[in-house]
């Protein structure tokens, strides 16, 4: 029978087929853990006298609540420090390898998997973090889980799950110059809504997707969850193989050939059927930003803040009214007339080397707008080292930006990097929820290129506005 990519990966991991209403038992190839969603799971294991079944398929990193300054000193916040210390103690007790602060591989969990070569096509990957969908860029079935499920995977290396429905998101033609993977995924989320993907695994296809780099593909898959989908996937191809080859944990020699031969069987069969399909024309897209308080509330950067009265759906209208009050915006205002206080470049969505290069190429030789603060946070210690070897840190610092150590930083407001109440930010992260970046903070989600142009002009802007 013809199968989609996700069905092939699913079927290859079924340990026990469910009957009737019973879920399948699915094997997990890689379990990524971090300090926030794992301590209660380890406590559960201890209480039940259980072990970690496969520490060799598990790896931990410290990312969510670590500071991005003074990482050589003890973490100042005692509660954060206790949580990070709990992760270290738990890993050491149960034999799980960890990349702690100061380790070259330490960083955001979804940057670590790909950079070490642990993330490979055809795998099942889980993590107690909703942005685990990132790894789908390699043709892996990767999704976020809760702490109870983290405990389940630690104990059994499996999860009982019902098969996801399949949705093809086909993006025909090519993206215009200056339009990025971030603009593309923000456009898709605005189109399908924050609940549009519920129950589905999305497969991004079409010419525009094939032309994306691995970094761009990761940005897309990363935000699948923002459209309600548990996972997003892209079929592996030569771009994927070239990215993996030579990485520390990638197969070598004869194993490499065997792996690639298998990976080539994974793409969706020509006659496979999806449960649903969404089609976009990439050539019509432009830089895209959010104006509201959920990632579906976005418009092209060239547009104006929408008027709630124009929403026909009463629920959306009410949500828009609330969002505009929170964001302190007036309908009809041009997005490009919105001034920001802060620019955040980083996160598991856009904290990779290519993102830093894209922003640096715009910022190079220029100065940040007056009174604007910009923090640049590499996704991992390795990305930071790479960026420094290319001199990108000097570009940012010369412009007046802050160059930080790796971590989730200002994406989620649980470490020292936060917006203050009323502060407005252009952020390359993934969520513009109320208070997400700090209580009372206001977030506009943007691409690294828009973030860079905004940092120079002070208002939401694209490189074109700088004559680039």
């Amino acid at each position, binding site marked *: 029978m013809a199968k989609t990519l996700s069905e092939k990966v699913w079927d290859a991991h079924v340990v026990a087929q469910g009957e009737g209403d019973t879920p399948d038992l699915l094997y997990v190839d890689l379990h990524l853990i971090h300090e926030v969603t794992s301590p209660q799971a380890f406590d559960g294991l201890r209480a039940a006298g259980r072990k970690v079944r496969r520490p060799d398929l598990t790896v931990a990193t410290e990312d969510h609540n670590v500071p991005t300054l003074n990482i050589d000193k003890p973490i100042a916040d005692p509660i954060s420090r206790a949580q990070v210390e709990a992760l270290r103690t738990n890993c050491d007790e149960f034999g799980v390898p960890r990349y702690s602060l100061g380790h070259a591989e330490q960083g955001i969990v979804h940057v670590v998997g790909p950079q070490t070569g642990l993330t490979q096509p055809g795998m099942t990957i889980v993590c107690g973090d909703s942005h685990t969908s990132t790894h789908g860029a390699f043709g892996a079935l990767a999704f976020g889980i*809760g702490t109870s499920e983290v405990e389940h995977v630690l104990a059994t290396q*499996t999860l009982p799950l019902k098969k996801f429905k399949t949705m093809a998101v086909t993006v025909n033609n090519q993206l215009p110059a200056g339009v990025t993977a971030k603009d593309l995924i923000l456009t898709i989320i605005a189109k399908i809504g924050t609940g549009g993907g519920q129950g589905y695994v999305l497969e991004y296809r079409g010419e525009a997707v094939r032309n994306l780099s691995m970094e761009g593909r990761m940005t897309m898959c990363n935000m699948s969850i923002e459209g309600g989908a548990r996972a997003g996937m892209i079929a592996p191809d030569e771009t994927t193989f070239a990215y993996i080859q030579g990485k520390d944990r990638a197969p070598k020699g004869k194993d490499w050939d065997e792996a690639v031969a298998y990976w080539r069987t994974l793409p969706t069969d020509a006659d496979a059927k999806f449960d649903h399909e969404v089609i976009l024309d990439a050539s019509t897209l432009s830089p895209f930003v959010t104006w509201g308080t959920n990632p579906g509330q976005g418009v092209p950067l060239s547009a104006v803040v929408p008027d709630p009265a124009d929403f026909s759906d009463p629920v959306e209208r009410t949500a828009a009214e609330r969002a505009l009050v929170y964001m302190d915006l007036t309908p009809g205002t041009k997005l490009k007339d919105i001034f920001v206080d802060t620019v955040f470049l980083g996160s598991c969505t856009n904290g990779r080397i290519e993102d830093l290069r894209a922003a640096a190429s715009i910022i190079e030789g220029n100065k940040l707008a007056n009174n604007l603060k910009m923090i640049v946070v590499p996704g991992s210690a390795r990305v930071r080292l790479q960026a420094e070897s290319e001199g990108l840190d000097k570009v940012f610092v010369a412009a007046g930006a802050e160059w930080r150590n790796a971590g989730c930083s200002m994406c989620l*407001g649980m470490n020292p990097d936060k917006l203050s109440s009323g502060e407005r930010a252009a952020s390359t992260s993934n969520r513009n929820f109320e208070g997400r970046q700090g209580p009372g903070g206001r977030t506009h989600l943007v691409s690294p290129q828009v973030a860079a142009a905004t940092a120079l002009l002070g208002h939401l802007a694209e490189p074109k506005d700088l004559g680039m």
Partner: protein
Amino acid sequence: MEAFKTHTGIGAPLRRSNVDTDQIIPAEYLKRITRHGYEDGLFKAWRDDESFVMNHPIYKNATVLVAGAEFGTGSSREHAVWALMDYGFKVVISPRFADIFRGNSGKGGLLTAQVSDEVTEQLWAYLEQSPGAEITVDLPTQTITAGAISASFEIDPYVKWRLVEGLDDIGITMQQLEQITSFEHSRAAWRPKTLS
């Protein structure tokens, strides 16, 4: 896990859609390493606003939350379920739940009852008209009754079975260890490992 059969309790109308898990419990509270004691963080930012519905003393003992569509979107934090349960909620009623939140609820013993937009609206109207009114949620028959309202709700049949029986997932899977071991023998040797 405690078995869930029927529950009757005060209903709280939360007339908002896209209640993401950052609103249910902000990240600041996620630094704790315990599984309980999150009630103080529930809807923290909203509760700082005096007019927020949950600040009405009548909802201090509410146990059934009636919320808008896309409840529980965003972060996978199971702390959102813990915070709702620690506050005293046994049931959340909504037209649509985010997948991860719904999964987490099923593990923790919080019932997520999915109803139509119309039923949600009826329940809101009823609760707003009669603040402090009770709602009964019967899991075996999948029915909600409140005043003159009687409606059915949807829930995954497997999750329903586990909740009604009060079964622990890991315990169930542990009975399949032989199959897991045999699956592991069939895995390709080149699959990556985190330990060398």
